[in-house]
């Protein structure tokens, strides 16, 4: 499935979120520990500086020409603008994941996102754990992206994509 928000018209600036059936998805067979470790001591260094064995470098050619993306399906956003003291709330589409549905609502005030609420997240058992992990960090990320503090997160997850997808559609509906 490819989902390209409507911003990709002829030219755009912004974010395109695409869900690709890419490179598989390993079966989660080990859950994250429920440890609450408080990241204690700091050990700097531990490294040696650059040596020799460089195998880095060139990547070869890929001559498969791009034949364009497949079906680009616009997300079926269900706008639900409801004015509330100068702010607008827009609800993104429900996006299915293997863990369950994900749906977010954004509150926009004077052109800025002031709140992002997860209306639906996977719940129960393992899925619940996943959503608990996935939601807050993206909430902060999406907000902080506006203030240009964090642009992206390394080590992100599958569920986060659906969150982004619903969020992006909601933002598009809100005209952000």
């Amino acid at each position, binding site marked *: 499935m490819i989902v390209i928000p409507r911003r990709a018209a002829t030219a755009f600036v912004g974010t395109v*979120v695409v869900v690709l059936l890419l490179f598989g998805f390993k079966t989660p067979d080990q859950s*994250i520990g429920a440890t609450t470790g408080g990241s204690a001591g700091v050990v700097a260094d531990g490294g040696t500086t650059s040596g020799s064995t460089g195998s880095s*470098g060139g990547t070869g050619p890929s001559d498969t020409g791009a034949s364009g993306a497949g079906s680009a399906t616009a997300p079926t956003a269900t706008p639900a603008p409801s004015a509330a003291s100068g702010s607008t709330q827009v609800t993104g589409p429900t996006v299915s994941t293997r863990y369950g549905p994900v749906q977010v609502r954004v509150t926009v005030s004077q052109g800025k996102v002031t709140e992002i609420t997860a209306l639906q997240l996977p719940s129960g058992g393992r899925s619940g754990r996943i959503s608990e992990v996935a939601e807050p960090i993206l909430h*902060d990320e999406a907000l902080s992206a506006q203030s240009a*503090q964090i642009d992206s997160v390394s080590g992100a997850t599958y569920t986060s994509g659906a969150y982004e997808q619903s969020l992006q559609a909601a933002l598009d509906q809100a005209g952000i």
Partner: protein
Amino acid sequence: MGTVVSLELRDQGIPADAVDAVFGHLHEVDARFSTYRPDSEVSRLGRGALEPSAASAEVRHVLAVCEQLRRDSGGAFDAGRAGRDGRLDPSGYVKGWAVEEAAWRLDDAGAHDYLINAGGDVVARGEASPGHRWRVGIRHPDQPDKVAAVFAVRDGAVATSGTYERGDHIVDPRTGQPARGLRSLTVVGPRLGFVDAYATAAFVMGLAGLAWVATHPGHEALAITDDDRLVWTEGLARYLVSGTGAATALG
């Protein structure tokens, strides 16, 4: 099921065709390399239905690089044993390589400033805004609303290996047992293919993997240990915006 790829493009006036080409390329790579498609070249190679000499140039190229990585890592990266049932799975290199290759479509279209995040593996080109590098947070392994560190990157790539909630534990191909000692390991360097593969190999090596990463010019690493320490290579300082052991809140 799949990898989520997001693109953040800061250039004005880049044609949508270029964006389509990026994702089109990723689909083509997936068709050749996916271990989840029985008809992919890699799947056929893995079960002996295709001779390596009959594979496409791309597949042969990737297999050659994977062999180079296997030797370089002393077997800690081993595409020949990475898959289910110990079958061929070059994904540890292919994903990053494919994203880099796809990004060239944007370069060709005149884009300078963009960020691609493919399932937590990041290619950051140019700057987020004039004079400001891209800020890439490294997820904290068990505090969901936190990042353990923030890197500032210009024209670089960042990849993290670890368990996180997806829980796909990383097996040490040398022993067949799950790798122990680290909760996550992040590598930063020039090209995502190697950055991603180094992160996979170094995670398996444990703390020794940090020093191994640093033997590769232009590459640095940060690890979070099982006992919640942050450990990093000396040269990482130029990327590290924050991350001093205490979890750093986003925003």
